[in-house]
């Protein structure tokens, strides 16, 4: 392990120092050696520097039909004498409004599909100017439907995701992604380890361009993957939502059910799409195992789950119980002295199932509910005695304020002993999320 780390450091250093003709400068954040400079510049609230040499502005996102330049100029000596902007490649110049502290603004009404070549000139009272060439930017106003732009971006993201190209995918994620781009980057890499043969298709349900260059997108998707954990195919479908920031389009937030980064849904998604369809979606647990949960909400990071069988030799004094935290079936014990979190006594004639709870444990029956449908434990309504039947689920609030759930799958045996098979899951972190 140490050798690997050492090798990594060596490779790192070689890459840094190979083939570079670096200038001898260090972090000069917020400073410039120039006499006259621009400290910051925004085009319709998007950083001039970050938007690249060419910008396409979409008509639907212009609230007042104008393109706004806002910035702040700085002069080393003296005062600012004037600030001018050209939109026609220096053929004509127009004065920008500015204040004594260097803040300036300039607006113009662009025409459709025309290219504007912008330069910004700052001049101090001694006649010195900024590096005008460095402010060159080509701006176009497009009447292309935002739908086309969003579709193009989503297609590119899906292409990168399907071909498991993490760097290619992250190009379409905003620095201000609300689930944190560092979380999403790790999550998609984990997705790529967990899935093979990813296939994603979608259709657009709704696109709404908003203020501040934001676009809301709702899609219906259909997906199939092969789990590298068990080698099996999985498929699901659903409705999900994104918000994109324009200039160019970058993902700002995503909701459950996720189509990207589902291995860390808890951190990547900020919200869940309102749905009552009961649709189960693919998600991944800590072990990279596929789980199907409603709306793809996160499988709790520490959730323990499985299937087991509990035996009843005598429903009064000889039946087994279960301890969720240890996933242990308790030894047959004397009735009334419940060793596990609960004991399950099966009585002939029905069969009738008594779920006996240890002191401090409360429970709530979810009649006819599958355990997969229980993604969140109820907050209230627990009692200290329940009698579920086959096909019912039970949510437990344990004495240490953690939550568990089980579904009674079936009861077998023609007479004593009876065997009850249960599916269970346990969330040890104290939340109600499974």
């Amino acid at each position, binding site marked *: 392990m140490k050798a690997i780390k050492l090798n*990594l450091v060596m490779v*790192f250093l070689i890459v*840094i120092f*190979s*083939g*570079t003709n*670096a*200038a001898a*400068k260090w972090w000069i*954040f*917020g400073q410039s050696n120039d006499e006259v400079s621009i*400290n*910051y510049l925004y085009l319709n609230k998007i950083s001039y520097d*970050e938007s690249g040499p060419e910008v396409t502005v979409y*008509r639907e996102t212009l609230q*007042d*039909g104008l393109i706004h330049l806002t910035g*702040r100029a700085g002069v080393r000596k003296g005062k600012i004498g004037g600030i001018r902007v050209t939109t026609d490649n220096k053929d004509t110049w127009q004065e920008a409004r500015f*204040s004594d502290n260097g*803040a300036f603004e300039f*607006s113009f009404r662009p025409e459709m599909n025309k290219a504007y070549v912008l330069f910004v000139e700052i001049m101090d009272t001694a006649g010195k100017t900024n590096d005008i060439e460095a402010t060159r930017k080509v701006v176009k106003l497009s*009447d292309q*439907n935002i*739908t086309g732009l969003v579709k193009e971006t989503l297609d590119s993201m899906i292409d990168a995701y399907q071909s498991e190209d993490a*760097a290619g995918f992250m190009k379409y994620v905003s620095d201000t992604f609300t689930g944190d781009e*560092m979380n999403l980057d790790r999550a998609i*890499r984990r997705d790529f*380890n967990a899935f*093979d043969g990813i296939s994603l298709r979608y*259709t*657009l*349900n*709704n696109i*709404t361009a*908003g*203020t501040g260059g*934001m676009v809301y997108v709702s899609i*219906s998707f259909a997906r*199939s993957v*092969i789990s*590298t954990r*068990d*080698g*099996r*195919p999985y498929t699901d*479908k659903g*409705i999900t939502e994104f*918000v994109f920031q324009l200039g160019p389009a970058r993902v700002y937030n995503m909701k459950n059910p996720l189509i990207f980064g589902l291995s860390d849904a808890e951190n990547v998604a*900020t*919200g869940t799409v*309102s749905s009552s*369809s009961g649709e189960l979606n693919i998600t991944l647990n*800590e*072990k*990279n195992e596929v789980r199907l949960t409603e709306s793809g909400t996160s499988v709790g990071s520490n959730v323990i789950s499985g299937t087991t069988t509990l035996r009843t030799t005598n429903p009064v004094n000889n039946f087994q119980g279960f301890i969720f935290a240890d996933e242990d079936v308790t030894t047959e014990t004397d009735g009334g002295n419940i060793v596990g979190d609960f004991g399950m006594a099966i009585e002939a004639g029905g069969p009738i199932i008594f779920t006996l709870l240890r002191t401090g444990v409360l429970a709530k029956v979810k009649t006819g509910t599958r355990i997969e449908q229980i993604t969140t434990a*109820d907050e*209230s309504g627990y009692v200290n005695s329940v009698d579920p039947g086959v096909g019912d689920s039970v949510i437990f609030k344990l004495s240490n304020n953690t939550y568990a759930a089980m579904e009674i799958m079936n009861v077998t045996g023609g007479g004593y002993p009876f065997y009850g098979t249960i599916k269970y899951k346990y969330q*040890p*972190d*104290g939340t109600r999320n499974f």
Partner: protein
Amino acid sequence: MDRKFLQKILCVILALSCSVSILFAGDNLHISNEFSLTHNEVSGPGKASSSLTEGLRYMNVLGVSGYGQSQGFDYSFNIGGKATDDLRNDAKQLSLTNFQFRASDKSNTLNLGDTFESFSQYSLSTSLKGVSYRFYDESANTPDFTIVTGLVYPRWDNVWRDHETKTVERQAIGGRIKYNFTPDFFAGVNVVGLDDDRRVRTTDSLYNSMVYSLDLEYRPIPGLTLKTESAFNTTKVSEGEGIDYTTRHGHAHKFEAVGDGGPSRVNLEYERTDPNFQALLGSATPDREKAKARWRYRYSKTLTVNSGFLWFRDNLEHQRSFTTHNYRPEIGVSVRRVFDRQYSTAGLTYKFDRKYGGTSSTSNHITNFNYRDRFGIFDSDTNIGYTLYDTETRVIDSRQYTYNTMLSSRHTLDKVILKPSLSLGGWTASDELADTRDIIYEYSIGLGMDIPDHKITSDLRIGMSKLEKEAAGTDDSLRSFANLSLYYRPDFLAKLNYGMLFLRAGLNDFSYTTGTRDFRETSVTTGLNIQF
């Protein structure tokens, strides 16, 4: 209301909208329509695992948009619809996708239909089906005032409450006042209310919530931007039919500093979100304290360093049994013109994941190396990755290696451009807990062919991906695939702004160790996309 009746109304609205649009919008009207027919064939015992719907299916997506001026107002509209008989593409056969009308003058803006007013991160950053009004006179620097109300639905079909798409009815109302005190400082006050009604299932939760937030942005010195938002909410929630509402109070705070100047861009961020803060219309993760730093530094014209650090934890109110901490530092270096080679670019990134709390503890290391270059007539792109998943509680301990390379080229033969490519890749995972090794091999060859004079672009790709697993009870799989896409913009469609015929065909054959999972899917789609 009767579904068919509503669908008829929808058709009439679309037809009327198109007609009225054409009459009034003149040259500023744009219509786009894409019609496609898809034939899917799925066979084999495991065909239920296919995400395709068998048979011949159609899909039509229509969009109408326009803009103009009338009586001193700029107006624009945007209407769209989708029709399909493939329920995997959409639960509805016919649906309205967009319906928006906007009118504005120098200081007033009215929006009807699809309404997306993104007030701030915590208060409102989702779309409504409703109405908004904004007043702002830039020349007089008046307060920027916006009100909005509507239904919070992801699609219009939710409004008609059709059986297939019915969901809890969620109404929202909100307002924002923003004032620019100086060109370098503004403050915004936001109030947003939400009220749920009409459960679909007895287990649906209903919320009633109010969020109050204040956001500020200030540029105190050149190159530095400070942003902050504080929000407080009161949320009442009933977690099911017959369950009383409980009330929660939560708060969230965020502070961000962005330094942008010279070769550096620095982001610093701190956020604290209470466990009871529910951003039902905004964007936030409850129960989270977070600190984040990111520094991008252009050391020279050829070398850029990206570094970042993220820390977050939960259990802010000590409501959990234990606290989970996450540390996620990373560093990356990108170098152009490596060894003075004109087209070369190398990148190396290292990311570390540390997570611990209670009985769990993980330390994951993710390293990737990328090299791109041109060798003679070939462009190459190679990636090598190493990931170590290491958990103390034996959840997942695994060493994973990824390696892939792509060679591509471009040749012009008279009027034809050929773009052959070859992709080779693999993935190896050694599971130390199960003492097993899994391997994926994959390769594909492709040939792109463009004929610019005839406005034809096409691409053909054939390949396979094989997963080999060692663990008992798991399946090996082999996926063979062939994909063809062809796009043609014929002259007879040249009168339109845009007209394109397309054909997409794909074959996927899946073969598993468990033969009952095998299936094969063939899909052919042809269509026409027009815009004018």
